[in-house]
């Protein structure tokens, strides 16, 4: 009954964070010196904008860290957490009007679109690299443009397949498919049982990219070659698209194009799908909210974490990076740099990653050995595949235009056109190549 109660309550109160602003000690020295209360307190302030983490305890931890540092250094640290999808608009307006947050979090390689408006943080990054060892290569590529770091790599969110073991067994599947074609065949059985493979190909920032990019890479599909020429329309791309149609029709949930980043979580937790490519959030939600399956047994006992199936060109994954940048308009650049250095210190970063319940890994390779994976052993497969990522824009550079391709959902739409039947594979490929050419400017 106690379990029922906690399931009923669903979200615990702990999960709600009252972010009413974090304050710290004011500058007493200034007041004493002038012998009267100053019009404005002589204290430094810092405004930090980041996303609402898909792992709620991480939100609590980052606020706590901000508070701690602020108190130690007499800085008024204000941490603002918003929906990740709303960050680009906020920061675009801030950069244009030259006022806004002092530290901003970016995903994929978004910030490369306005690299010149961001402070050069190469000094922080090279210091971290020499102290702790190198960054994961794709995380590093996403934080650099033209040889300089415009953001400090922070974390990496891994994405692999989350699977219902019992549904696989019930359909007679003995092991997780090793190739996409096997997934198509096994998935057909799962779909017949009412539990297809579920994936979004809609206009979302996370899951859609995490699935479509590695799928295309596993067929050897490249946006550009090393010289920067758009080479999307290739034989492999056509093959990938044709197969995708078959995969979609046979094994996948037709509702996918309308899903956002949370829909596949909901679908999985309510037993609607057998497998979906996702970050650890499904497992963590199932665990913290003690989600039960149809038989009343805790769902986490039935969850497997498996790698992406292989295409003709191999197995690929995409894990999106999160990095922190300081816009040039900030009046607190030095304070921000201090804070970032502290945040990336072993003690803080370890606490953050562990309290986030191993939802994300760190951009620094050394943390692959961290004990957080032992605290959450079910999530070890995420660690095992964490190095198997690539930056966007392959084979070209992960530059501003590559970010625009991500932000305008071009490759995602290319697959969605085919999945929904709006366009035939050839037509969609031509469409996407036209879009790439107009973005990359050929």
């Amino acid at each position: 009954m106690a379990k029922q109660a906690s399931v009923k309550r669903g979200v615990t109160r702990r999960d709600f964070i009252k972010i009413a602003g974090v304050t710290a000690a004011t500058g007493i020295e200034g007041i004493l010196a002038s012998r009267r209360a100053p019009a404005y307190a002589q204290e430094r302030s810092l405004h930090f904008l980041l996303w609402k983490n898909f792992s709620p305890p991480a939100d609590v931890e980052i606020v706590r860290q901000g508070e701690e540092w602020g108190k130690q250094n007499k800085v008024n640290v204000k941490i603002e957490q918003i929906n990740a999808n709303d960050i680009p608009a906020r920061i675009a307006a801030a950069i244009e009007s030259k006022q806004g947050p002092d530290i901003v979090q970016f995903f994929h390689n978004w910030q490369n679109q306005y690299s010149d408006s961001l402070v050069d943080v190469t000094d922080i990054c090279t210091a971290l690299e020499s102290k702790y060892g190198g960054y994961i290569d794709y995380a590093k590529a996403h934080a650099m443009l033209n040889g300089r770091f415009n953001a400090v790599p922070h974390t990496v969110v891994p994405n692999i397949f989350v699977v219902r073991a019992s549904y696989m067994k019930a359909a007679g599947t003995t092991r997780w498919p090793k190739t996409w074609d096997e997934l198509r065949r096994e998935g057909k059985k799962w779909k017949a049982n009412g539990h297809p493979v579920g994936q979004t190909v809609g206009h979302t920032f996370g899951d859609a990219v995490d699935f479509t990019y590695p799928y295309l890479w596993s067929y050897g599909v490249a946006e550009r070659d090393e010289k920067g020429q758009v080479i999307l329309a290739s034989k492999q791309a056509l093959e990938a698209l044709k197969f995708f149609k078959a995969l979609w029709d046979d094994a996948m949930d037709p509702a996918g194009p309308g899903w956002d980043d949370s829909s596949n979580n909901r679908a999985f937790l309510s037993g609607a799908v057998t497998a979906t490519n996702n970050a650890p959030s499904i497992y963590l939600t199932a665990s913290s909210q003690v989600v039960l399956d149809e038989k009343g047994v805790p769902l986490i006992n039935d969850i497997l974490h498996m790698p992406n199936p292989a295409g003709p060109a191999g197995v690929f994954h995409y894990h999106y990076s999160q990095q922190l940048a300081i816009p040039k308009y900030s009046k607190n650049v030095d304070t921000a740099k201090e804070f970032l250095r502290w945040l990336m210190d072993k003690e803080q970063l370890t606490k953050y990653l562990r309290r986030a319940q191993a939802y994300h890994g760190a951009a620094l390779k050394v943390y692959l050995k961290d004990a957080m994976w032992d605290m959450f052993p079910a999530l070890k497969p995420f660690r095992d595949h964490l190095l198997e990522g690539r930056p966007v824009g392959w084979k070209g550079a992960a530059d501003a235009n590559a970010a625009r391709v991500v932000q305008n959902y071009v490759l995602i739409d290319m697959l969605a056109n085919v999945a929904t039947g709006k366009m035939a594979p050839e037509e969609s490929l031509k469409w996407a190549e036209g879009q790439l050419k107009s973005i990359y400017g050929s």
Partner: protein
Amino acid sequence: MSQELQADGFGADGARVAHKSVLALLEQPNVLGYLLMLPTAFVIFFFVAYPFGWGVWMSFTDKKVGMAWSQVKFIGLQNYVDLVTRDGVFWLTVWNSFVYTGVATVIKWVLGIWLAVLLNRMIRFQRLVRAAVLLPWIVPTVLSTIAFLWIFDPDFSVINWTIRRFYSWMGWGYVRGPLWLGDPTLALASVTFVNIWRGTPFYAISFLAGLQTISPDLYEAAAIDGASGWQRFWHVTLPGIKPITVVVLVFSIIVTFSDFQIVYVLTRGGPANSTHLFATYAYQVAMVGTRLGIGAAVSLFMFPVLALVIIFQLIYLKREQD
């Protein structure tokens, strides 16, 4: 009295004279007119005209977010040409916007008149029902649209649940129910539906106001002449509400054509760009994809269409006045 001006206006008399001359000045239509227009002019100039001009200028450049103005290149109509000739989403956006606006407007119009006629007959609970009917328009759009996100959810949709129950009750087996936001055509229909749901009350209440300006004598005269209910509606009601119809249509078309929130919340323009409207596509290109110049150009494509709509209204009203 107010026009008494004395030649030698000094001292205490002088003050009174000065006061009087200020008042006299204010009597002049020209002066008073400009003075009264000042507040609105201020708002419009600083907060609409100037930013608008800025936006138009931006659409003739290759400006991106964060690009210093010194680096911005003037490229004339290149953005517009690129949108029309090269962009693979633009024409789809045009199509979506026209379909969305056209279908929603016609349906809101019909439903609005119908509901207004019904409300007009009501005597008891009049106030309560009118306020209740206005609720969709009163509730903040973002919030009611989120409710629809849940109503249209592919797995948890209450509509689909109802359909499934009905099917099983009829013995027709399992059916998943429509993919309200997953299928491209259905998604456009769904966002249009939400727009209709939100906008019909505005039409209804406005038409209700219009109905109340129609003199009952006209109806009596028509009834005496032997007109049926339908004929009375066609020949008395509809012409009677023509003035309000034009005004409501213009306002609604402008708002619907430039709509943003509903699509942004429900689909962000997906699936596969099948629900992108001008505003949402401009937002994606300019804010999310940081290409401000092109985004501004997308936005400005709305301008000629909307201008035409307004011009029609002005011509119509002018004709009615003469």
